[in-house]
């Protein structure tokens, strides 16, 4: 394997492409977003998208914030060659809901909020709470890992170039017209 710091910088784009593809898939190719256990779930964009255009020499960054923010600026930015570098996502299974931010370059989680847990009334209940919280964190890690695997499986085939990129291009163009 490559040196870790070299790999981190050289393949930053892979995470940004993943988030860009994820936004596209949530809107236009939802059937592809499945989990190995086929458990029904929903995933959607929350209240924040960050895009960056690193193709031109100067880095142009656009942040779209707000619960009902319009995404026109995002499509315009994509049209100019930007990619998504950070997303706020809402993941739901049944009546349980998780919210979190994920960055493309690291795929680290921040601001991760999980469904309600049991209330701790004494010190000896803390271990139970830790296990419950870890179970809930694992659900988010599992869905992100599963979606990332779907993306990687596509990204490493010719289908990415022949089917996915043209479909994303069409989606961007249609987003600009709406």
């Amino acid at each position, binding site marked *: 394997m490559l040196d*870790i710091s070299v790999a981190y910088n050289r393949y930053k784009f892979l*995470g940004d492409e993943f988030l860009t593809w994820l936004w596209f898939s949530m809107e236009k190719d939802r059937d592809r977003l499945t989990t190995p256990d086929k458990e029904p779930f929903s995933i959607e964009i929350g209240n924040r998208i960050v895009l960056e255009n690193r193709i031109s020499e100067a880095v142009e960054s656009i942040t779209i914030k707000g619960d009902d923010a319009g995404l026109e600026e995002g499509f315009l930015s994509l049209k100019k060659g930007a990619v998504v570098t950070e997303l706020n996502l809402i993941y739901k299974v049944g009546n349980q809901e998780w919210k979190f931010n994920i960055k493309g370059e690291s*795929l*680290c989680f921040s601001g991760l909020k999980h469904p309600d847990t049991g209330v701790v009334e004494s010190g000896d209940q803390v271990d139970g709470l830790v296990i419950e919280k870890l179970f809930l964190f694992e659900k988010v890690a599992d869905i992100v890992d599963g979606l990332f695997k779907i993306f990687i499986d596509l990204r490493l085939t010719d289908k990415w170039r022949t089917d996915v990129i043209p479909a994303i291009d069409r989606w961007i163009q249609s987003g600009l017209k709406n």
Partner: protein
Amino acid sequence: MGLLSPSVSITRYRVEGKLEDPVIETVTRGLKKYTLREIDKDEAEKTSGWTSFNNPFKPDFDGSSFLIGNYFVFSLRIDKKSIPSKIIQKYYALETSKKLAESNREFLSRNEKKLIKEHVINVLSLRIPATPNIYDLVWNYEKNYLWFFSNLKTANEEIETLFSKSFKLTLIRLFPYTMADLTCSLSDADRDVLSKISPSEFTR
């Protein structure tokens, strides 16, 4: 923000390597060897080490107290003394005046000024307590992964170094490339493609 906070940050790692049996005793030994050492009563400006998740200001790793279910749960603590620059300036000016008066001179050499500044910082470091920062972690030994509850660069670098020294194991941070390589069940042919890919352009 720690594991029990309502909103958390997580950096994920793969743990490479195996611990010497019996595993729990080996972990206990590593934790005890690198337990955080208090610096409130000495001149050190910064320290880091392991501490207990349940009691971060009184670390105790006896009796497998860091074991919760199948997880090892403990914390990294980084203590740092921050002396406001204006306080350093004040005592530096006082010490400089004193030295000039004692030596009956109008100027001090560059080296003398440097020594006075170091002396002032050392004296102030003894009087100012260190500010503790606590970062929880969860280590699933059986599944070779570790979650560190912070995305801060300095804290991540500190845990990578301390973990390696304490347990003689390597932490590999999971980011797009390492996730693809280590967690996506790639074939050799896939890895070859991965090593050669370059950024896509989504629009014509």
